[in-house]
């Protein structure tokens, strides 16, 4: 558990994944936490997803802190407590809020959360996850247009894993990129990145493996190791496509360990 002090230039960072259910929020954060931890930053993991049990982010990280059983109000109070702790102790964390009506949505409706967090010298990175469906943008529209929650550091993440077979990513995400909500967000400073598709993602997560373990052929819980080709798929995805994905993020948005982490990241993609 890292409580390391931040340099004055380096603000504590919290990543919050937003979007409707099944757009890949947990998959994104799972990948991100593994990536950041491999870089040497033991970011904290907060699971406030009260709906998703079998593939909750807590399933992937034994040290994840998760919201206690209860209702939306309980989740809201828990998230508030976590945020206050982060502001006080200055560390990095990722927050999986889940989809639908959540404690987080209640919190942003009740208090000017952005001002409170960013005013406390904490960088909040909002990750708006979307597939190619128009309805996937509901969160972005709702949060941005009502000025509820649109962090200065916002990334619209296009999840290529949700593109139906036979469609091109360019064609599938065309209507999303031309949507007024995305245009408006871009003008407000939001960036976009495409989360690459891993065909055997469920083969990895169902086995409770990290991506590095999967590509190295590690066997856990007496499950059959990944096939040779799936290992090769994970290898390519984890060592080339995922670094390229994070390379799109501005350096100051990444809770990476080490001062030259971003430079290493670029080298690895070559």
């Amino acid at each position: 558990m890292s409580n390391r002090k931040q340099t004055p230039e380096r603000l504590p960072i919290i990543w919050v994944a937003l979007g409707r259910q099944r757009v890949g929020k947990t998959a994104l954060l799972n990948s991100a936490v593994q990536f950041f931890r491999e870089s040497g930053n033991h970011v904290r993991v907060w699971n406030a997803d009260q709906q998703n049990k079998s593939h909750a982010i807590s399933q992937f990280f034994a040290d994840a802190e998760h919201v206690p059983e209860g209702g939306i109000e309980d989740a809201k109070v828990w998230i508030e407590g976590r945020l206050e702790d982060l502001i006080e102790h200055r560390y990095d964390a990722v927050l999986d809020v889940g989809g639908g009506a959540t404690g987080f949505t209640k919190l942003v409706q009740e208090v000017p959360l952005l001002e409170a967090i960013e005013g406390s010298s904490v960088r909040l990175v909002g990750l708006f996850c979307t597939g190619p469906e128009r309805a996937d943008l509901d969160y972005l529209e709702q949060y941005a247009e009502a000025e509820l929650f649109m962090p200065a550091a916002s990334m619209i993440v296009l999840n290529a894993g949700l593109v139906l077979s036979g469609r091109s990513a360019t064609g599938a995400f065309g209507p999303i990129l031309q949507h007024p909500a995305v245009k408006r967000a871009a003008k407000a400073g939001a960036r976009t990145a495409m989360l690459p598709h891993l065909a055997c993602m469920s083969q990895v997560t169902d086995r409770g493996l990290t991506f590095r373990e999967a590509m190295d052929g590690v066997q856990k819980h007496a499950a059959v190791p990944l096939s040779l080709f799936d290992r090769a798929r994970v290898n390519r995805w984890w060592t080339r496509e995922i670094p390229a994905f994070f390379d799109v993020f501005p350096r100051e948005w990444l809770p990476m360990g080490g001062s030259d982490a971003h430079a290493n990241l670029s080298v690895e993609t070559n």
Partner: protein
Amino acid sequence: MARRSKDSKAILRTLERSDQRSPLFWWMVDHFDEITARSRRGRISWASFCAEVSRQGLTDRDGQPPADATARKTWERVRAAVQQTRAEEEAKPPPRPGSIYPSRIPKDWKPSGYRDAAQAATKPPVGGGEISPARLAVRSGTDSTLAATAVQGAFVDPEDPPEVQQMFLDIEAQLRRADRYLGTPLKRRTE
């Protein structure tokens, strides 16, 4: 067989992964061709099958190790779902750019981002080089999805600030790289 298996997996990915189905159901969907091939070689022993899948942690909808009858019925449901999905996929017309062939696109057609091609040509985006009217032409080897996205810079609005234009060019480049890697077929016109 390899080709068939690849095609099957592509079709099966189109099945919506509903939580209403059990892990056993989705495992059977993922291994549909293998189970089908095995069943052709002789009767499946559901008792042995259940013992093995239970050992690997697969469960029925209630989270319990599947019983023989449950596994057999689940397999029947999987077969029905897969066959229906395949039939629907086969019934679909071949994909093409919306309902408009490139040859039918009006000569003065412009992607929505380009309200004024002349303006675009005289106002190059940052870092992206000059946008010439030639870039607006739909290429003969076009993507098989949307004509509107078949041109470079389709998402760029020249009235946007340079950094926003650059952002849309960057994401477009990412998407196109993914399409090349994924092997989206670039169909040539045969007419």
